[in-house]
C-alpha cells in the first residue's frame, strides 16, 4: 500500500498535469500499483478574487464524472474514498512538508522549491515538466537533477504511456534507486559573508 502526493505548483495552474491526473485511467493505474492514498495539491492561482486553479480542478472532476465512475464517496469537500483508494485534494498547503513526509513517492511540477523539498526529505521523486512556461528553466533544472540521478523527469505526454507506470512500479518497489541528496549546511555562504565583513 502506497501513498502518493501530486503537487502541481502553487502560483500557476499546471493545467496539462491536472488534466491527466484527473483521468479515470490514471487513477485506475495508480490503484493497480497499490496506491491507496493520493494527495493532490492543485494550485492556488488567484485572479480577480477567484481561485482559478480550484475552478479548473472542480470543472474537471465534474466533467470527467470521476466520483460516479470510480464509485467514490465524498466524505467532505475534496476528500473522496472508495474501497481501494482515498483521494484528498487541496489548493495549497503551507505545511506541504508533512504531506511529503507521509508519501512514498511524489509527482511534482518542476519548481525548484518543490524539487528540493522532496529531495531534502530523501523521497522518491518524479518531475513533470511544464513546457508551456515562458523560459524553460524547469526543464533545465530537472534535466540536471536527472543527470545527477536524484530524480526522474517526464514530459507531460509521457504520462499516458505504459513505461511511465512501469517506472513508477519499479520506483515504488525499490527496483530503481536514486542517489541521496545532501543538503548544504550553510557554512559556505556564512564564510562568504564573513569574508566580506573582513572577518
Amino acid at each position, binding site marked *: 500500500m502506497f501513498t502518493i502526493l501530486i503537487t502541481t505548483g502553487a*502560483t500557476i495552474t499546471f493545467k496539462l498535469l491536472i488534466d491527466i491526473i484527473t483521468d479515470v485511467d490514471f487513477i485506475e493505474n495508480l490503484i493497480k500499483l497499490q496506491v491507496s492514498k493520493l494527495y493532490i495539491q492543485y494550485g492556488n492561482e488567484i485572479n480577480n478574487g477567484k481561485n482559478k486553479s480550484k475552478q479548473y480542478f472542480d470543472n474537471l472532476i465534474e466533467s470527467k464524472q470521476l466520483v460516479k465512475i470510480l464509485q467514490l464517496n465524498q466524505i467532505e469537500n475534496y476528500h473522496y474514498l472508495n474501497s481501494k483508494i482515498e483521494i484528498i485534494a487541496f489548493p495549497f498547503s503551507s505545511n506541504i512538508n508533512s504531506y511529503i513526509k507521509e508519501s512514498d513517492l511524489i509527482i511534482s511540477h518542476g*519548481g*525548484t*522549491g518543490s524539487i*528540493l523539498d522532496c529531495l531534502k526529505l530523501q523521497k522518491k521523486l518524479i518531475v513533470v515538466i511544464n513546457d508551456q512556461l515562458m523560459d524553460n*528553466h*524547469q526543464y*533545465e*533544472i530537472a*534535466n*540536471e537533477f536527472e543527470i545527477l540521478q536524484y530524480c526522474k523527469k517526464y514530459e507531460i505526454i509521457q504520462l499516458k504511456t505504459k513505461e511511465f507506470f512501469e517506472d513508477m512500479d519499479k520506483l515504488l518497489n525499490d527496483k530503481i534507486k536514486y542517489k541521496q541528496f545532501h*543538503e*548544504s*549546511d*550553510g557554512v*559556505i*555562504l*556564512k564564510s*562568504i*559573508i564573513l*569574508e*566580506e*565583513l*573582513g*572577518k
Partner: protein
Amino acid sequence: MHYENLISFLVTIVTVPIFLILIRLVYILYGDPPRRVENVSISVFLGSGGHTGEMLALISKLDLKISTYICSDETSKNKVKDKGEVIYIPRARHVGQSYFTSIFTTLHSFIISSILLLFNCPSVLLLNGPGTSVPIAYIIFIYKFLGICSTRIIYIESLARVEKLSLSGWLLLPITNRFIVQWDKLYQKYNKVEYYGILL
C-alpha cells in the same frame, strides 16, 4: 584670455572631474577591499515567489542575524514580519498596469527606495533576483560611489539558472562584490562568478 588658454582651461575642467569619477568608479568596482566592520548589519532582499522561497531557504541555514528584510511584495513581507525589521518597497509595476502610468509608479518606487535605503545602508546586502532587486542594488552602488556607505553586495544566482545567467544577474554582475552561481556550467561560462555546489 587667449584663445588657446581658454581651450586648455575648458578641457581641464571637463576632463579632470571625468578622470576622478573614473578613478573612483574603478576603485569601487575593482579595488575596494573588505574592511573589518564593527556594527554588522545584514540585509536580505525578498522579491517574490520562487526567489523569496529560495532566499529564505538559504538564510535559514545561516547562523547569522539578519537585521533587515527588504521586501517588494506582500507575501514576502508576511513571511518575515515576525523575524526582524522589514522595509517595504512599493512595486514599480503591477501586472496588467499600463506602460504610461507605470513610468510614474516606477519613479515613485525608485524615490521611495532611495530614501529608505539611505537610512538603512547595511554592511552586507544579499540578493538573488528578481528584476526588482536591480534598482535596489544600483541605488546602494551609487551610495557606495558617493562614499555614503560601504555595503558589500552579494548576489546568489537562482538554482533554476543552469545554462545562462538571469537578466537581473547579468545586470548586477559588474557591481556585485561576490557573485555566486549554483551550477558548474555557469561557472565555466563567466569569469567573475564563484561556484561551490548547490547552496540550498
